């Protein structure tokens, strides 16, 4: 989230799309009901299904799964053509006036630089035109044909309301109402918040869905402003935490990059990341990358990290590929993986194409399942008939189940969607012989290290170099680990005059204190300050709101630097004055920046200096035109890989032209002739993913897998409410009860009727609920071109009524 859960209360319009907050985030959703009840905010929901959030909405518009870019581009076009943009904001705080290099072009859905063989773009022509001073060339009049503004106007003009209706199936009047309500927040005193979740990310063009939303918010001047923002609702209580901590294979803690092949030395890694400002007087905060990186290495390797050995950079693995979940399981399927340690992970349920996952797991030598509960994955080898067809006699994989304590039984922290780190204490004793994850991993580390010490082996140095300096090496405490994340001074740190600013051994109060000479450590720079010299701020539970803006600055600690709204300098105009009294937040008082929140800015830089709010970008401003994207600097309507119709905007495009598709997976995409029905997956409020199907009371409230079908499709197929249906894709099938509902309606796509069905994902073959095959038996094995998030939300199936099971 750029903003926070509690800030939603400041919104005038709440737009939920690509998510279902009432269903998946019922507790956070209370801030939507508060905004409605207390401020009179209007809620609009755009979703393929009339869902629980829609039940709370003032306006609902349907949309065919996978066509969000067309819808959102339609809104962008509406804002541009009707000039519903916050001019001062857009002109100053975005790259709207920047010129793009000569040679940049766009035709038939493809940008310049496309290579069909490698399915990738050469982005050379997507760059800004640079002046001789090393700064970007701008046209403040916005009339230059190569200015971002003119490029955008041209680019989005095709997405008329008529085109939106033709492609997405959203009736024109319903679409226009969404656009009008959004446009109502282009004034300086009104803001809109956008809430999304996996309904936007789980597409082969997921990152571009979110780009569209970010562009809308920038045009409306709604980023960095209370009641605004683009707010990703995270799917687990600590999924923000796991991304922050760098569990994605290509990233290190705090969004630092994993070294890759071709970066043999620390310098070769860092020089690629200079982040030199491309406008005068800009912050470009990533210029401090070096300090954060060295501090991280000091935490990893302690005394073994010295200036002479590149602070141990040589010990770090260098990636040849990004090992995302799809790649991991594809390699496993090819028989290239020996063992898998599954820690709090149930891939048989949560990875696309379950039959492939099951086959992949069968090729392992060993599988370790570290989990508080018996997962379906740990029992993948058992034959559960149609729910999990398997022949145990043919599977050689040895499975180890290591029971771990649940989150309720151990101390630690959660980081919620608001980036707020909150401490938790154990509520119960560990169950039976379960052990903490930390204990098991420590034990494993110590044992492996001992084996290497005894027997030697290849590439052992990195393992030996790891700094494991804990009171009890077999069980590092949550407190020690938290302190390590924050970082400390390793020597007395002094300022320019030689005055000691931080004594050796003291915790750092902010990442601003980190150094690149090995005199500080800290695993996770963005968390620095959460456990500073004044103790563990994650434990704070003060719910006072001194500004009255629903900002609870003394509750937990929001990274970075306890900031509740990112880029909050943008809540004030160029002179540092709030855009309006209603949205007064962070402002310049003549001497300093201050206000309701911790300013996202050097607090002493006066507005006259022209330093812009988007301090993480070398531009200093935000990007309407974003060259770093793999699939284009501007969003383009792309159909899902399995789509009931051809791309009506750009007929030559098939799926996302740069999404990675593995061999043999392209072949099992289904076509619209055999599989004419669109399907989407989602979770139910009654369950938490695949966990609570084992909890009796949750099972009572939703006991059995079902398929949501429109009354029209039910009539067409002869399906009865409560009757059994079979749903099959080109990869597998599931069977379940039919919930025939008015909440799904067929779409009219370019004059053709297209049906969509809904498939809840919470059911499996282990637990208290009725047995069901994993919903991912159906889903395609392809991911987003930027993030590789699998395309779970839009694919093709067929459906038929079947006789019920003999009870």
């Amino acid at each position: 989230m750029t903003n926070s859960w509690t800030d939603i209360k400041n919104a005038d319009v709440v737009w939920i799309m690509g998510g279902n907050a009432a269903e998946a985030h019922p507790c956070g959703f209370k801030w939507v009901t508060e905004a409605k009840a207390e401020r009179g905010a209007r809620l609009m929901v755009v979703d393929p299904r009339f869902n629980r959030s829609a039940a709370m909405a003032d306006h609902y518009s349907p949309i065919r799964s996978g066509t969000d870019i067309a819808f959102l581009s339609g809104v962008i076009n509406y804002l541009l053509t009707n000039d519903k943009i916050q001019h001062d904001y857009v002109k100053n705080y975005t790259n709207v006036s920047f010129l793009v290099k000569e040679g940049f072009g766009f035709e038939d859905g493809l940008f310049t630089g496309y290579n069909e063989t490698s399915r990738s773009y050469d982005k050379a022509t997507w760059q800004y035109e640079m002046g001789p001073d090393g700064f970007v060339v701008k046209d403040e009049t916005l009339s230059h044909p190569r200015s971002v503004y003119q490029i955008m106007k041209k680019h989005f003009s095709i997405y008329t309301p008529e085109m939106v209706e033709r492609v997405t199936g959203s009736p024109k009047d319903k679409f226009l109402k969404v656009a009008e309500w959004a446009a109502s927040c282009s004034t300086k005193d009104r803001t809109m918040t956008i809430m999304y979740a996996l309904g936007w990310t789980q597409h082969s063009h997921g990152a571009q869905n979110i780009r569209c939303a970010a562009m809308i918010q920038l045009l409306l001047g709604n980023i960095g402003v209370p009641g605004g923002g683009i707010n990703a609702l995270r799917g687990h209580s600590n999924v923000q935490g796991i991304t922050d901590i760098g569990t994605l294979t290509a990233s290190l803690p705090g969004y630092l990059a994993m070294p890759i092949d071709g970066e043999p030395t620390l310098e070769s890694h860092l020089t690629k990341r200079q982040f030199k400002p491309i406008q005068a007087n800009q912050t470009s905060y990533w210029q401090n990358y070096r300090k954060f990186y060295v501090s991280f290495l000091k935490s990893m390797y302690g005394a073994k990290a010295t200036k002479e050995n590149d602070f141990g950079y040589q010990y770090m693995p260098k990636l040849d590929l990004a090992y995302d979940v799809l790649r991991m399981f594809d390699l496993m399927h090819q028989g290239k993986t020996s063992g898998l340690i599954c820690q709090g992970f149930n891939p048989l349920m949560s990875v696309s194409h379950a039959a492939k996952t099951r086959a992949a797991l069968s090729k392992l030598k060993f599988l370790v399942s570290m989990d508080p509960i018996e997962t379906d994955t740990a029992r993948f080898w058992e034959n559960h008939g149609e729910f999990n067809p398997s022949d145990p006699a043919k599977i050689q994989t040895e499975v180890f189940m290591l029971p771990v304590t649940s989150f309720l039984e151990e101390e630690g922290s959660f980081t919620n969607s608001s980036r707020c780190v909150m401490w938790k204490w154990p509520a119960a004793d560990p169950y039976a012989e379960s052990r903490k994850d930390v204990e098991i991993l420590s034990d494993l580390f110590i044992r492996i290290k001992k084996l290497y010490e005894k027997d030697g082996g290849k590439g052992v140095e990195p393992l030996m170099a790891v700094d494991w300096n804990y009171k009890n090496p077999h069980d590092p405490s949550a407190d020690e680990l938290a302190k390590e994340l924050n970082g400390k001074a390793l020597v007395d740190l002094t300022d320019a005059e030689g005055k000691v600013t931080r004594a050796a051994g003291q915790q750092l109060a902010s990442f601003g204190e980190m150094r690149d000479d090995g005199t500080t450590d800290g695993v996770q720079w963005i968390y620095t300050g959460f456990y500073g010299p004044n103790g563990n701020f994650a434990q704070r539970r003060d719910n006072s709101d001194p500004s009255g803006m629903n900002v609870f600055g003394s509750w937990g600690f929001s990274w970075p630097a306890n900031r509740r709204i990112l880029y909050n300098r943008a809540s004030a105009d160029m002179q540092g004055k709030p855009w309006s009294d209603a949205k007064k937040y962070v402002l310049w008082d003549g001497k300093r920046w201050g206000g309701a929140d911790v300013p996202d800015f050097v607090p002493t830089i006066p507005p006259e200096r022209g330093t812009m709010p988007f301090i993480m970008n070398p531009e200093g401003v935000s990007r309407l035109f974003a060259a770093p994207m793999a699939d284009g600097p501007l969003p383009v309507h792309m159909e899902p890989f399995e789509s009931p119709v051809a791309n009506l905007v750009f007929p030559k495009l098939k799926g996302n032209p740069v999404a990675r598709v593995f061999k043999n997976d392209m072949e099992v995409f289904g076509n619209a002739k055999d599989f004419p029905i669109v399907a989407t997956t989602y979770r139910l409020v009654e369950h938490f993913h695949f966990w609570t199907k084992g909890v009796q009371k949750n099972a009572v409230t939703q006991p059995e897998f079902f398929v949501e079908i429109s009354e029209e499709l039910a009539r067409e197929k002869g399906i009865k409410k409560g009757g059994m249906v079979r749903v099959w894709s080109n990869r597998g099938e599931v069977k379940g009860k039919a919930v025939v509902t008015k909440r799904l309606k067929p779409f009219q796509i370019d004059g053709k009727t297209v049906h969509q069905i809904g498939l809840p994902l919470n059911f499996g073959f282990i637990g208290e609920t009725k047995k069901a095959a994993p919903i991912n038996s159906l889903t395609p094995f392809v991911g987003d071109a930027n993030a590789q998030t699998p395309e779970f939300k839009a694919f093709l199936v067929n459906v038929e009524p079947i006789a019920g099971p003999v009870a």
Partner: protein
Amino acid sequence: MFTIIPNPQAKPIDAKFGDKDLIRRSASSITPVAQRQPEVAKLIDVSKCIGCKACQVACLEWNNLTEEVGVNVGVYDNPHDLTPNTWTLMRYTEYENPESGNLEWLIRKDGCMHCEDPGCLKACPAPGAIVQYSNGIVDFVKANCIGCGYCIKGCPFNIPRISKVDNKAYKCTLCSDRVAVGQGPACQKACPTQAIVFGTKDEMKKWAEKRITDLKSRGFKNAGLYDPPGVQGTHVMYVLQHADKPNIYAGLADNPRISPIVELWKGGTKYAGLALIGLTAAFGFLHHIVAGPNRVTDHDEQEAKRLAGK
């Protein structure tokens, strides 16, 4: 946001009400307490309810109840009806509003309404099996229940259910045990969106007014409070978007009244019956006074012997 009721202190607290605060007791005549406690109420704002069923689970947890894992029958309602263990249930209705043309998903939390004039209590023949406290809560006293099921006949909302295990009647207690120590009911505590709020009936009516104003601003011109006069009002009330059509909310009674059979039987019929018994006795007595005792005469004896052939 409605003021959140703080958690109680860990040390024991005296119950705020008990047997001394009864205003009604089934099949018994009691002297109602002179001074009523402030009437309490639970307000269920249907327009804020996301249908998450947290209230259903909280009810099971707090009251230590176990419901069976059922099946899906093509709807979101699970279980499919109230049971001796499920005292509250979300009921989902897909309503196509003929005026706006919009689909509405109306989600109503069903359960005991705690009527001011409780039909169950009036129908109950077992002394003290159903009681009403002066704060309005209608509670079942299991020890006194005979399992006759008359309470079901008496209820205008079809709420009580008889257990097949112990043959006793069960329904929502409005968490009288929690309310007695200053807490709101468990369902209210669990509700994430404050669709359920709890307080005095006056507070709830005021809060409802604010909600109704908000709903009217969103085009629900018939938004209103459901506090039906047919049962002299209830201690569980709804804010409805369409207060003119309660029935569209999964069959909520438009104008609930205690069944005339119960009224007749426990009202007029009961007194008529009692009067008849009294009158018969009075007639006998009068007859005795006027005609004197009915004695056997010597003539009767002799006639009897003759007839017997002796």
